[in-house]
């Protein structure tokens, strides 16, 4: 049997690996591939009988000869034993048993999943197009007509069904008996059944009728699928979520973890067999880059789509590195082995530094240009061959890294530059295609694809210094920073030598100003900087005006990366202000956004000043609605990430009150989850300080005084540098009324 089509889904099963192919006519075929996962052990000759003994008990086989493979850091061949597991389902158990029997030996390739290993070994990837040849339903060969890093590729026509809660104002886990809404073929169906048996039967009927390839859900991972599968168990009514009825549930555990100074919560995953389930609420990459970005990433990282949707970008990056190592017969250590070398305190002081930050010159500026280095950190790794095994390689004696005087290998290319080169090339091409796109549709497609890759490039650098990254080495991480500082400093010097002054600079961006400078002047400057640093820098745009507001902590100084400006083409760029912050109530974001929209029409500071009456009109009209109690509650929601359990709060802050109220109601928020609340009385004198949004009733009202203050502060940021202080703005906006009760019809309309 020959099937010309795409590799849609794959997972381990009793027959090795189960594969689903979608052919060009849209037909789905299930087949199997025989596959024996294996790993390597570097043990003493005398341990060999012991290894064979353990293998016999576990039905594993051990290679008869010692096999020579490359150890990544030394680049030397070392002898290892190859241990093959009996099948794909028992690979993990076998590894675990071996690890407990041989705790002091190094294992290689042992933490790869059988699916990963299969894809690497057969040089396949999700959605790979080609001719799949089966005999007796077993895959015998593949004639691939596709490449994992291809820029032009086709995607099978996919039947997409969406599954979401009918009520979307609060997460379903906080709702009593949430109702499901299923949509496909441009039609939506509410599953309003009386009993759980009916819900299951009705949902099954929809799935059987439409036979979706993809179920795009909202809260499927977190709430619906676990709930449905529990109901199915209880009622013994089989649930047809899986296309492959012989496969069981494929679940992963939920986790809360710290990353970049904040706590993050990831829901448990619920994957399907023979069809994809993607939870839009539980996929970082889908939120950033939509389905086309996700598919592009799955292809290049060789991680099955459902896993790629839920995994961190770093995992995708690791997979690319693992594949490269696998293809080059390089052993992949199961645990990181490269510890940090000893340094003197002075050296540590010199090496352990990040990128450079020039605080902005506070206030409004006109005709400022923004210059950005394109993918600066990955480009540094690529052009300077920065990789864990190449920095301080031990075989070369050069002085390659500025300031730190580390050496970089001249004899071999590193795993990092080798793997990111495909991503860099792909992203550069996608950016070009996005820019030259003839239709909005094509533009969107390439924007999504390049955004997904951007996240991957961003992660490469972090992973060099991440303690758990397999191919990480702190000296490589330090080297990239050193090159980056050197790059920014050189750019600054060139700009200053040409008469430009630096208004602001962060790591890989510069904001420059020179009286009378034209686009041409800036382009020339970019060319000169690109040539001298080896990293491409481009003109992002020229601002008609840009504001660097004062810091919220100290009004006499500005903060980095907080600004608002309007480019000469009228486009607005905002960073760090309320309108960009997801903790700010929607009502305030909308008001600030309207004001900024108006301001973007001004050609310069003088005209901005003439807009003040119109700005105040916007503010007044919004405050009028606020004071009349007519703002729908969901527009007043303040979002706050919970950092500890409800009983761990020692104070009675608004956040503590909310976390405790939720906990008392039986909803225990996990650290990293978001609490949504409305301020009722921030003083806490007249009533409770705040109410979780889900418990908020119209008669609770909201704190007009506090919300007015938040609104005015969002305007003060913009007008204070023009001489309008909070007091002046407050006076111009009219008087404040105290807490108001809501209950009129317009409020209720807002809720529904």
């Amino acid at each position: 049997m020959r099937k010309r089509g795409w590799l849609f889904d794959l997972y381990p099963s009793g027959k090795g690996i189960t594969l689903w192919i979608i052919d060009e006519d849209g037909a789905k075929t299930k087949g199997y591939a025989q596959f024996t996962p294996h790993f390597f052990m570097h043990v003493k000759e005398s341990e060999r009988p012991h290894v064979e003994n353990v293998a016999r008990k576990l039905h594993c086989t051990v290679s008869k000869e010692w096999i020579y493979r490359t150890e990544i850091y030394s680049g030397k061949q070392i002898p290892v034993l190859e241990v093959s597991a009996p099948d794909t389902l028992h690979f993990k158990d076998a590894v675990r048993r071996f690890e407990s029997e041989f705790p002091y030996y190094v294992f290689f390739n042992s933490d790869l999943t059988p699916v990963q290993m299969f894809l690497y070994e057969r040089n396949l990837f999700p959605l790979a197009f080609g001719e799949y040849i089966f005999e007796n339903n077993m895959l015998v060969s593949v004639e691939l007509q596709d490449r994992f890093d291809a820029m032009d590729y086709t995607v099978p026509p996919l039947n997409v069904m969406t599954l979401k809660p009918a009520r979307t104002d609060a997460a379903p886990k906080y709702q009593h008996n949430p109702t499901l809404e299923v949509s496909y073929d441009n039609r939506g169906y509410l599953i309003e059944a009386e009993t759980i048996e009916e819900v299951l039967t009705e949902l099954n009927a929809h799935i059987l009728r439409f036979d979706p390839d993809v179920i795009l859900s909202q809260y499927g991972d977190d709430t619906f699928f676990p709930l449905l599968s529990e109901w199915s168990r209880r009622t013994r009514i089989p649930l047809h979520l899986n296309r492959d009825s012989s496969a069981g549930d494929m679940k992963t555990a939920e986790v809360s973890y710290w990353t970049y100074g904040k706590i993050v919560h990831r829901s448990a995953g619920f994957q399907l067999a023979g069809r994809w389930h993607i939870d839009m609420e539980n996929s970082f990459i889908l939120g950033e880059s939509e389905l086309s970005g996700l598919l592009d990433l799955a292809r290049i990282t060789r991680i099955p789509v459902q896993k790629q949707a839920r995994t961190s970008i770093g995992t995708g990056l690791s997979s690319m590195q693992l594949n490269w190592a696998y293809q080059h017969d390089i052993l992949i250590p199961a645990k990181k082995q490269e510890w940090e070398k000893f340094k003197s305190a002075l050296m540590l002081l010199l090496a352990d530094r990040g990128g450079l930050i020039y605080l902005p010159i506070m206030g409004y500026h006109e005709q400022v240009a923004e210059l950005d280095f394109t993918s600066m950190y990955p480009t540094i790794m690529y052009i300077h061959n920065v990789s864990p095994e190449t920095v301080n390689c031990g075989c070369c004696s050069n002085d390659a890294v500025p300031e730190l005087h580390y050496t970089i290998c001249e004899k071999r290319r590193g795993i990092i530059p080798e793997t990111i080169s495909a991503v860099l090339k792909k992203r550069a091409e996608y950016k070009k295609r996005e820019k030259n796109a003839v239709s909005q549709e094509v533009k969107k497609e390439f924007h999504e694809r390049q955004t997904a890759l951007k996240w991957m490039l961003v992660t490469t650098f972090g992973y060099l210094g991440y303690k758990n990254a397999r191919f990480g080495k702190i000296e490589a991480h330090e080297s990239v920073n050193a090159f980056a500082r050197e790059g920014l400093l050189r750019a600054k010097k060139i700009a200053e030598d040409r008469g430009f002054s630096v208004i602001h600079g962060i790591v890989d961006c510069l904001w420059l100003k020179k009286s009378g400078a034209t686009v041409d002047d800036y382009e020339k400057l970019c060319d000169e900087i690109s040539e001298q640093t080896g990293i491409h820098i481009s003109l992002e745009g020229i601002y008609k005006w840009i504001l660097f507001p004062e810091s919220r902590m100290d009004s006499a100084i500005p903060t980095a990366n907080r600004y608002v400006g309007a480019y000469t083409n009228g486009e607005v760029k905002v960073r760090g202000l309320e309108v960009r912050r997801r903790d700010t109530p929607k009502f305030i974001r909308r008001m600030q956004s309207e004001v900024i929209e108006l301001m973007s029409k001004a050609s310069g500071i003088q005209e901005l000043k003439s807009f003040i009456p119109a700005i105040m009109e916007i503010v007044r009209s919004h405050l009028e609605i606020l004071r009349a109690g007519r703002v729908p509650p969901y527009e007043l929601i303040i979002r706050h990430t919970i950092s500890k359990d409800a009983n761990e709060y020692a104070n009675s802050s608004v956040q503590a009150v909310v976390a405790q109220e939720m906990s008392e109601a039986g909803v225990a928020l996990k650290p990293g989850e978001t609490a949504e609340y409305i301020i009722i009385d921030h003083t806490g004198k007249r009533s409770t300080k705040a109410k979780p949004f889900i418990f908020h009733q119209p008669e609770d009202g909201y704190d007009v005084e506090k919300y007015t203050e938040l609104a005015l502060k969002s305007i003060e940021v913009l007008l204070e540098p023009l001489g309008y202080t909070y007091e002046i703005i407050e006076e111009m906006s009219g008087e404040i009324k105290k807490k108001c009760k809501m209950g009129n019809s317009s409020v209720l309309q807002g809720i529904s």
Partner: protein
Amino acid sequence: MGRTVETFTVVIQEQRTLWKKFREALRKEDQQVLDELFRAPKIHLAACAYDVKPIPFENVVMSMLVEEHKKAVALQEIVDKLNERLTKLETENAKAGMAV
């Protein structure tokens, strides 16, 4: 994140804490002056971080000196301009007096 050496922003905060007792004993108006001085290293974060000294107080003081001298130069320019105008006025007045 996971850094061994603190960022210079944190170092500035620590340096302020080191001078907390000193600040307490200052008169209220002088406390404000000290607070203003401590803004200097924040303004020169890039330079401080690029060339951090084993005793970071040296970076803090050097930043303060740069900012103070910048202000002195700016003030000197104003004084020079005012002086120029004053001399001009005096010359004009003297001429007017002679004419009278």
